[in-house]
């Protein structure tokens, strides 16, 4: 088998050196009843040709985003990743290295994570960021738990504009870790009065910007209300490219930012692996979950980097850890760092402008379709439209005709008939004029 370097002769020599007659002797502690007497009922080993054929066949059954006009967003976005990114992350020293527990031979990983932490802090307008979490939704739940620890309180208020998956993950953690949530109902197109829900027992308020409906808001006033009452403001960002054009949470009074970094460097990949970002204030850093890379010097006085503040983490604090997290999203963070290094100060805002321009053009065209109503006042690259009938069959019909028209809100809010007519439509720099034409014509036909 091509991945196994031992030959039968090797095995024989090694068994002799160990002093056992066969490999079975080394499995003697396995209870007899649990020993498998034959191979498990699965296919035998396959060469590359056959594996490629089998998995390639499955891949070929799917409609790839690039093969159709594509307007699907909802917290994961189709952006162009420059070719250099994928080449660099596949260098073996990045791909096949481990967590940098031995810093002297991991300065590559540690330096890029330090650069990543800096980039995330700069983008979000915050003081400090960690070396990534699993995804935006778990980052959101970790942010709430961090706020609970910092305030000593146990009730979090969640905006109705928060991505439903993010709310659902918070609900799961709340139930088992033991805290309360006041999750507001989804109310697209309406202003929410979250300030009245904050009191001396509130640990945090969680809002999203742009929110699930694509709407942009200034959360500064809510931030002030929270702070007056000793609560924290958590801002979620599911489209990180928006921070190339939109005022960052750090300039709106956010105490913690939980975000999804997939849009930079990382493919859609049917939902994972993605990239959780967590940023906050310096004074809160000892309560931040996840890994942190810090700068220091070595015995020669040269600048270098190490994992630091690890005593908060599970491998030392065990049951008193800030979180049970062990793994971060290293390679996804590297892809993010490289992509953002390529874009830089002038490229990210330009990319953001392209996205916004596409969305503005699309919103105008959608609004022009009879029966279609745009719900957004301010938006970045995603909008919500109300159709004159349920959106799910319309989307399905358009998919059959080769257009991936967006997300019917009922896909994520099945029990709410009042939302069934709503459609989320995203437009990134990958959307062409022709794509928009096919969408608007298709919609108009479907609704006529």
């Amino acid at each position, binding site marked *: 088998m091509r991945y196994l370097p031992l030959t039968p002769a090797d095995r024989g020599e090694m068994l002799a050196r160990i002093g056992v007659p066969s490999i079975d002797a080394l499995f003697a502690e396995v209870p007899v009843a649990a020993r498998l007497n034959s191979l498990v009922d699965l296919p035998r080993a396959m060469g590359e040709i056959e594996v490629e054929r089998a998995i390639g066949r499955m891949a070929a059954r799917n409609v790839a985003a690039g093969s159709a006009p594509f307007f699907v967003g909802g917290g994961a976005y189709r952006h162009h990743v420059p070719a250099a990114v994928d080449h660099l992350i596949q260098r073996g020293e990045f791909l096949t290295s481990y967590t940098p527990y031995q810093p002297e031979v991991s300065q590559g990983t540690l330096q890029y994570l330090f650069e990543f932490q800096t980039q995330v802090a700069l983008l979000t307008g915050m003081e400090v960021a960690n070396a990534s979490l699993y995804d935006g939704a778990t980052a959101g739940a970790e942010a709430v738990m961090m706020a609970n620890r910092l305030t000593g309180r146990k009730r979090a208020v969640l905006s109705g504009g928060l991505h439903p998956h993010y709310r659902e993950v918070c609900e799961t953690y709340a139930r088992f870790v033991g805290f309360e949530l006041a999750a507001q109902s989804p109310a697209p197109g309406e202003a929410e009065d979250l300030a009245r829900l904050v009191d001396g027992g509130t640990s945090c308020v969680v809002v999203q910007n742009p929110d699930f409906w694509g709407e942009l808001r200034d959360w500064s006033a809510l931030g002030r209300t929270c702070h007056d009452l000793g609560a924290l403001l958590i801002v979620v960002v599911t489209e990180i490219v928006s921070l190339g054009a939109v005022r960052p949470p750090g300039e709106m009074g956010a105490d913690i930012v939980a975000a999804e970094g997939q849009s930079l460097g990382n493919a859609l990949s049917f939902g994972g692996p993605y990239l959780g970002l967590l940023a906050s204030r310096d004074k809160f850093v*000892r309560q931040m979950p996840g890994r942190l890379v810090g700068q220091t010097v070595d015995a020669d006085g040269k600048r270098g980097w190490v994992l630091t503040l*690890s*005593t*908060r983490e599970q491998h*030392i*604090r065990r049951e*008193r850890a800030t979180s049970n997290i062990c793994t971060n999203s290293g390679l996804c963070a590297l892809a993010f760092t490289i992509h953002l290094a390529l874009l830089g100060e002038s490229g990210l805002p330009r990319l953001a402008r392209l996205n916004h321009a596409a969305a503005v053009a699309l919103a105008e065209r959608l609004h022009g379709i009879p029966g279609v109503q745009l719900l957004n006042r301010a938006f970045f690259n995603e909008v919500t439209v109300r159709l004159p009938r349920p959106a799910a069959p319309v989307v399905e019909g358009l998919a059959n005709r080769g257009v991936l028209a967006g997300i019917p809100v009922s896909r994520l809010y099945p029990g709410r008939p009042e939302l069934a007519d709503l459609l989320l439509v995203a437009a990134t720099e990958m959307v062409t004029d022709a794509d928009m034409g096919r969408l608007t014509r298709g919609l108009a036909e479907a609704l006529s």
Partner: protein
Amino acid sequence: MSAPRFTKDHEWVRLEGDLAVIGITDYAQSQLGDVVYVELPEPGHRVEQGKEAAVVESVKAASEVYAPVSGEVAEVNDGLAADPAKVNADPLGEGWFMKLRLDDAGQLDGLMDEAAYQRFVEEQH
């Protein structure tokens, strides 16, 4: 100032007037390694004998520090925030953690004196 008394968790306490000064022992600091951070309570906070009063972090470990006696926190050693190395360099002096207004001076009687503590530490090895 009285002679220090010691606990099995390697904390020390001694009286200074009507305040009880608390810290960790030389043995504790040597086990921890370089101290990087000390989490101290707020003045006014109550601590109970045997319950967690502070947390001391080194690069490789984080340890709870339990109050040897009960009382109300009168003062904490703010100098440790800027220079946690004091805990390593002078654990019974400048590395003190907090001063308590003592509930009951009798609680010290139940703790080990220096000789008994030294014997206890030797048995640990």
